[in-house]
């Protein structure tokens, strides 16, 4: 990933806007650079956690995989295959260098390299995430705009109640009901299968993505709604009204764009929850993604696969949060990135 260089444009805009009156105003580019640096450090620690998980947690992976009554020779052999027969520091070095050579180990069951599994399964998960994010934004933005601007008495109250309910709904139950209704009763969604090519895969992804929206839309539309209310209080909106700025320009530049930033920051924060719920959805909708692979590996006690996949999940969340924060700081230069 190439980090954008700081532009003088952004700097001068920040100075003129008068919002950067902190101790030392940072340009958007500088902020993005710092945030990227932090993401790389976090990614390193994600690797460390994925490494330690197998080695430091209670329970021994080898006896867990083989069962308590395995012959000592078998145990020793597996220990060697997993690289657990050397001291932890050497292990970490082997693991670390292996990562950069694209080596995540191989499945204990099938012997297929983990990277090979990722090549076929990761795109499915990525598509599901992308579809979910797009759908969430497409639903949340008009919804929040409408409720904030329509000023229908009682509507915000109903909206708040509904989002409080939506927040507490288990996605797997919603998935089961929708799959039954859409897939079996109405027959408008396939109940299993997947097609890896682009327009065709949407047929399989729209329903799981819609269910995933149940997790995200209540939170996001709520934040966007209150953020729009805050924006409407700002003086520049008043100025816009006085100057007679109309329709699209008013809604996008004056109201929506400044309100979107907190929403995008939250979206990047929610990525963990969302990526977690894709695991369950992949199982219910029988999508061949890495979440389903993870659960299979867990039930088979296939450690190299478990370790490899959780590492990918961790890095994925780090990357998606970074992306979200960058988008937020481009949308609104006032956003502070930590």
């Amino acid at each position, binding site marked *: 990933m190439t980090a954008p260089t700081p532009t003088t444009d952004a700097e001068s805009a920040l100075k003129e806007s008068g919002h950067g009156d902190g101790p030392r105003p940072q340009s958007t580019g500088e902020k993005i650079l710092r945030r990227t640096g932090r993401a790389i450090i976090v990614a390193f620690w994600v690797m460390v956690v994925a490494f330690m998980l197998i080695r430091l947690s209670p329970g021994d992976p080898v006896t867990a995989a083989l069962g308590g009554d395995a012959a000592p020779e078998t145990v020793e052999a597996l220990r060697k295959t997993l690289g657990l027969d050397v001291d932890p520091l050497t292990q970490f070095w082997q693991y670390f260098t292996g990562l950069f050579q694209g080596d995540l180990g191989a499945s204990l069951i099938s012997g297929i390299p983990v990277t090979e599994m990722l090549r076929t399964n990761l795109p499915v998960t990525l598509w599901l995430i992308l579809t979910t994010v797009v759908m969430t934004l497409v639903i949340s933005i008009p919804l929040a705009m409408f409720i904030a601007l329509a000023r229908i008495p009682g509507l915000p109250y109903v909206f708040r109640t509904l989002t409080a309910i939506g927040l507490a709904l288990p996605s797997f139950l919603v998935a089961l009901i929708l799959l039954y209704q859409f897939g079996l009763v109405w027959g408008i969604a396939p109940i299993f299968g997947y097609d890896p090519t682009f327009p065709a895969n949407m047929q399989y992804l729209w329903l799981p993505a819609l269910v995933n929206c149940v997790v995200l839309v209540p939170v996001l539309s709520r934040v966007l709604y209150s953020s729009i209310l805050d924006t409407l209080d700002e003086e520049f909106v008043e100025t816009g009204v006085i100057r007679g700025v109309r329709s699209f320009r008013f809604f996008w530049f004056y109201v929506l764009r400044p309100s979107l930033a907190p929403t995008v920051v939250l979206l990047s924060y929610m990525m963990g929850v969302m990526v977690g719920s894709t695991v369950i959805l992949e199982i219910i909708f029988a999508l061949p993604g890495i979440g389903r692979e993870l659960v299979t*590996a867990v039930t088979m006690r296939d450690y190299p696969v478990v370790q490899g996949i959780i590492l990918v999940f961790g890095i994925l969340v780090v990357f998606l949060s970074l992306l979200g924060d960058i988008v937020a700081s481009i949308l609104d230069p006032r956003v502070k990135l930590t």
Partner: protein
Amino acid sequence: MTLVGAGTADWFDVEGTVPTPKKARRLKDGTVGLVVGLVMLILLLIMGLLVPLLSPYTIEQSIDMPFLPPSSTFWFGTDGLGRDVFLRVFDAVYLDLGVALLGVMIPFAIGTIVGIGLAVGRSKVLNAIVGSIIDGINAFPLLVLAIALIALLGPGLQSVVIALSLTNWARYARLARTRAMVVKQQGYIEAAQTLGYSKPRILFKHLVPNVSSETTAYALSDLILVILLIAGLSFLGLGAQPPTAEWGAMISDGRPTFQIAWWPVIFPGLALCWAGVSLSFIAEGLTRRERDVKS
């Protein structure tokens, strides 16, 4: 009830003559939600206590009539093994909520201690290392880490609690550390120091209560997430094991036969939603009341 926050966009009211309502005796914002949530929760807890006590069956007992639809004798019908769904749903109340409470309280305690320790402690190296591990753990989706740990610990509710304790503390630790950093700078801490109070006294009487008030607010919303997480793990077959009556496990149990019998899936699902929604209303009510007091 003020629907749109007071003072919002007054330019929209062209007349501009909307009189500010007198501060008459009125219910605080969010009181209704809080009461509704509490009533829902108490109802669930009472049912969870009474139904297993009064039921003529036990959760594992089969009445040899599988898939009986809901009727006046079996309000929620019977499942594939002929067990009374009504009894099983309410028998699970204390298990589900109890495990979730444990799964929140242990990380809460560990996280608060670690977070305050990091904010107060002087060792920069330790601070950096523990801080980075916290960031590393928090980067993972909680569900994914829990699944991975259960791979090592073996499936079961006990493993779920251990997995939650090992992972979820990092979220509380981050929150507690940030909060403790702020509290440390406050005037009352300085005042206490000037008065010559001992360090433990300042720590336990001033710092800890002020930090934990913040983490407690988070814990309530976390409880909803953890309830869903535990049910989700059980649904995947990694949490509660049969024949334990647990909502997620019951939903998973009834899933293959959902087409012929919806009741073994929908009723545990409704109970799960009911528990989540009641807590969500309580959390929402509390936050709104607090905001109302402040404004």
